């Protein structure tokens, strides 16, 4: 059936191509584009495009991928969020097996337990809610709406009552919930993409790790944020900057010390990528934030000739002796002796502390062991007595148990089969593994967390060393939108991820053919980012007006908008791109071309910054600052309300 359909479509496409070429097709293209196309154009650029046929719109296998973990107060039970299955699993720690599962709709991702272990709080990231499960029956007993994309939560006991702090990754804020009565007290802003939250040991404060750097000029040093909240007053009390650091996916307080730890990727996007050796593109580390002093020191996890990429989970044992950092790209848990860290910090001068993260030979001072894990270790949890460390091996569908006394694996809780027969799952393994890059420095995920953007522009040296920034584009929803690269020179993902990627970034050899097939299958399976709350089902009046502007052929006063300058000419639905390069007046001083690939607009609200070099921090800036002479669509007639309407519509796509 599929084959028949494929043959039919291919035949039709072929006929149209031939007809196009032989019967004035080029004239038709020029008329429809309002200009001569700058690249090879066929009927398929504008016709026969169906979202429904794209890989990300197809059903795909679901896996028992462990996300958040929560351990019972007596250490005998562990709850495991299975976001891909809409389930929470409960496992017996001694038997190391799952004993029951509960259905929890909404991609349950983060977990937190009340101190008595009676209630399990579940952050459901795709339904923008927190569910409450009775741990006795493992059934959902309550739910509350929070910000968008909740992924982590922490329980905090304050003098004014119990609080639950929720990191809302998509709305960039924190829901502070009162547990009794069950209501949202406040929703202060976090940094960009808050991804983890942890309560202080005394329960009065909470700390939030944010995954992306804040939006700022691409010419400035990027900063992410470690947010501290007074859980009693619901107020943010500090926003500590982590300079040139991002992708913090976890945070923990260190018992018996005044420290907060968060892993980080130290990024060097402003330095021309002439090499990757010596962490020239990025390196991995963790931040030690000393609360009383407000001092933050970034320390490396990497070694001079080996890297421990994509640091994700972090946990500190109750004695404050060890901290554990999961390196999702390297399949390793780094064991950090915190006393050694303390000693080093005490010995070091301020200059040495400032310099520490750049010193790739420093980590042997405090990393005492590297424990191998299964694929893609992400989240960590300790038993209350600290005797066992649980590691979610996300792409093996298992939870590793490490004996913290011996620092050796003690067993594994199997959740599923790992998805070894699913090319998408196998591709995700390739995507998240740093085994393919020089000295395991980074993975695809290091720049594309969850296949999305890291909000940065990088200076590639492909056309010589120069001030050539290129905005990092999302891979979510990218299927069917080729060609790729900002200059549109890579016709397929297979080519994009092949030799060029190996030469420019991996600095090794290309992915083996099978791995490349799996990798592209995974990338094509990524749907566009969700940008609206799940319960939205219609456009607002402003969005409707914006839609009319987007599809307008005339200005409000009746003047015709040239075909070449209409939004819809280049950004035609359903993908909102005709997949051709156009000149939009954004050529920079060192750019070698003035025509840039037309990006698709699905989920565009969540892909800032914009334009080929990331110069526009917001959609508005595309037209308020960087569109001269209506080169990027006729917009000069718009007043501010109309521009807001247009942006409002774009944010619904």
């Amino acid at each position: 059936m599929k084959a028949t359909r494929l043959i039919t479509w291919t035949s039709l496409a072929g006929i149209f191509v031939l007809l196009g070429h032989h019967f004035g097709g080029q004239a038709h293209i020029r008329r429809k584009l309002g200009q001569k196309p700058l690249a090879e154009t066929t009927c398929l650029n504008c016709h026969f495009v169906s979202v429904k046929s794209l890989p990300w719109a197809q059903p795909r296998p679901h896996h028992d991928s462990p996300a958040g973990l929560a351990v019972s107060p007596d250490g005998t039970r562990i709850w495991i969020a299975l976001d891909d299955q809409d389930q929470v699993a409960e496992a017996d720690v001694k038997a190391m097996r799952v004993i029951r599962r509960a259905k929890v709709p909404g991609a349950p991702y983060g977990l937190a337990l009340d101190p008595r272990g009676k209630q399990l709080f579940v952050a459901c990231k795709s339904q923008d809610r927190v569910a409450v499960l009775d741990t006795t029956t493992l059934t959902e007993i309550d739910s509350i709406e929070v910000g968008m994309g909740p992924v982590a939560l922490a329980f905090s006991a304050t003098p004014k009552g119990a609080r639950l702090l929720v990191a809302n990754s998509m709305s960039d804020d924190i829901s502070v919930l009162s547990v009794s009565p069950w209501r949202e007290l406040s929703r202060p802003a976090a940094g960009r993409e808050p991804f983890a939250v942890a309560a202080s040991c005394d329960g009065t404060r909470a700390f939030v790790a944010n995954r992306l750097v804040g939006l700022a000029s691409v010419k400035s040093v990027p900063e992410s944020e470690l947010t501290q909240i007074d859980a009693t007053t619901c107020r943010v009390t500090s926003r500590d900057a982590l300079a040139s650091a991002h992708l913090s996916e976890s945070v923990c307080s260190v018992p018996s010390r005044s420290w907060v730890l968060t892993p980080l990727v130290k990024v060097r996007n402003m330095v021309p990528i002439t090499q990757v050796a010596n962490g020239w593109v990025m390196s991995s580390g963790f931040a030690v934030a000393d609360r009383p002093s407000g001092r933050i020191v970034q320390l490396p996890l990497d070694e001079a000739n080996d890297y421990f990429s994509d640091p994700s989970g972090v946990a500190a044992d109750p004695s404050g002796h060890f901290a554990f950092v999961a390196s999702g790209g390297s399949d390793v848990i780094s064991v950090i002796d915190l006393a050694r860290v303390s000693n080093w910090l005490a010995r070091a001068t301020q200059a040495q502390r400032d310099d520490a993260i750049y010193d790739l030979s420093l980590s042997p001072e405090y990393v005492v062991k590297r424990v191998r894990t299964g694929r893609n270790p992400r989240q960590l949890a300790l038993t209350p007595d600290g005797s066992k460390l649980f590691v979610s091996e996300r792409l093996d569908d298992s939870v590793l148990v490490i004996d913290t006394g011996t620092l050796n694996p003690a067993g594994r809780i199997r959740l599923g089969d790992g998805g070894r027969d699913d090319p998408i799952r196998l591709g995700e393994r390739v995507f998240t593994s740093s085994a393919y890059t020089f000295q395991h420095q980074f993975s695809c995920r290091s720049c594309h967390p969850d296949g999305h953007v890291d909000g940065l522009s990088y200076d590639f040296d492909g056309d010589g060393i120069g001030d050539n920034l290129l905005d990092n584009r999302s891979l979510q929803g990218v299927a069917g939108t080729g060609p790729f690269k900002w200059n549109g020179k890579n016709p397929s993902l297979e080519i994009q991820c092949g030799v060029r990627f190996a030469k420019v970034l991996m600095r090794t050899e290309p992915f083996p053919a099978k791995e490349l097939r799996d990798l592209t299958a995974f990338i094509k399976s990524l749907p566009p980012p969700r940008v609206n709350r799940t319960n939205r089902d219609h456009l607002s009046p402003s969005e409707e007006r914006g839609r009319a502007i987007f599809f307008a052929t005339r200005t409000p006063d009746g003047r015709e908008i040239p075909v070449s300058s209409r939004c819809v000419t280049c950004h035609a639905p359903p993908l909102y791109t005709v997949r051709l390069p156009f000149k939009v007046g954004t050529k920079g001083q060192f750019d070698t071309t003035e025509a840039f690939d037309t990006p698709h607009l699905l989920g565009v609200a969540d892909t800032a910054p914009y334009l080929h070099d990331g110069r526009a921090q917001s959609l508005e800036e595309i037209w308020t600052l960087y569109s001269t002479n209506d080169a990027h669509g006729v917009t000069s007639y718009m007043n501010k309300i109309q521009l807001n309407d247009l942006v409002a519509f774009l944010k619904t796509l």
Partner: protein
Amino acid sequence: MLACVAFLVSPLGCSSPVPTDSIVVTQIPRGISAGPTADVLDRSYPSGSRIVLLGSASDPVRLLSQGLIAAGEPVASFDGKRVVFAGKASQTSEWQIYEASLVGGPPRPLTSVHGGATDPLLLGDGALVYVSPVPSSGADPVLQSSALYLQRVPGRSSRLTFNTARVCSPTILSDGRILFVSSSPGVSEFSTGLYTINNDGTEVSAFSGHQERMMIRRPRQVPDGRVVFLTSGANASCEVRAESISMARPFGGTSALFPACRAHLSSVQPDSDGGFLVCADREAAAVASGVFRLNADARSLGTPVFLDPKWSSIEAVPITQSVRPMGRLSNVDPLHRTGQILCLNANDTTCSESVDGLAPKAAAVRVTTASSGNIPVPLGEVKLQPDGSFMAEVPADIPLGFEALDQTGRVLRRVNPFIWVRPGENRACIGCHERPNHSPKNLRPLAVRVAVPLLEPAVSERAGKNPE
């Protein structure tokens, strides 16, 4: 196991399976002293030295260097099916690299280069790397220039290193880089250091600190995260020690590999079980050298796994299927004659020449190359940007040195011509005499915003550019 005395050499030309856990050994006949030698290999591997495979009880010693009058420096392929080594076909011929199948058959010459070839190395993709020319035995070998060459197709070699130093003992690291020994620039004449390049000769970098007045030989990466090697003084009579460097902290100094074990070592090779395959003898020349398996905490050599009283075993290589090192696509563009260099801050330096401990600030950098007499020759000068950065386009494949100049043109710091760029290579550094194993700060260098000057050698220098 193989702790036997072997007298029999299996018939030549047969095709026999390779036993698991076998070892390839370089043997030199005992009681034969090297006669007049033309080069250093003649001295190390006198006539009669040979490469053998130690196998099963029924086939204890299989000659792999059949037809050669001398052979040594065996290196096994990662699939455990073949071995390459340096060999000499006759007294008058030069040393070349040969390949032999472990299942049998005569060796096949892989090179035929003027000046001879030595120190073979196999890359992960099977390509051959070797050193040429073979240093003559007359002058101090440390002072004799040599280079690494890459050969993917027999008879077609390309040069990988482009300075005037003595380069030797290449080995492959798991990350795909070639680790090699080189005499170090600007330090005492007997100092050597470990350096790395990519498999296309790009990104030449110091791997560790140099060893003052010491020769380094036979570096090998160990799976436990170390590089082990042999060191000795410049004289042949000096004691040979096995030492190690941590890959995690290669500039953190060396450690004795077998601190509790006294022995005279001639080779150390990582074994498949995490230990080491060692060729050594207990009492120098009094008895034959044997092959031993040692752990790092060994207190003595113990029982040899192989000992033949008629032969001294001076090199031993385990034959196993091992993890293939990472490969790498070349960034060299043969259409280019130049490469670009970018320094983020020439004033970021570990040199401290002033009273206050801070190095004086440079205002410009002079790029130099080496003349035939090893004297730095200026290629041109580049002004530093306010942030200390500079860029220049420089000729590819010649040695490059740098001199930091103050406002008056006085030389503040100097790096003698030692590094190079390959055609089309973009090469960057953090500073001049930068701190090793440091990554750069995330700052945009001002130099990338200005026109890049092309620095070219004078015509007279260009004429003598190619060291080949």
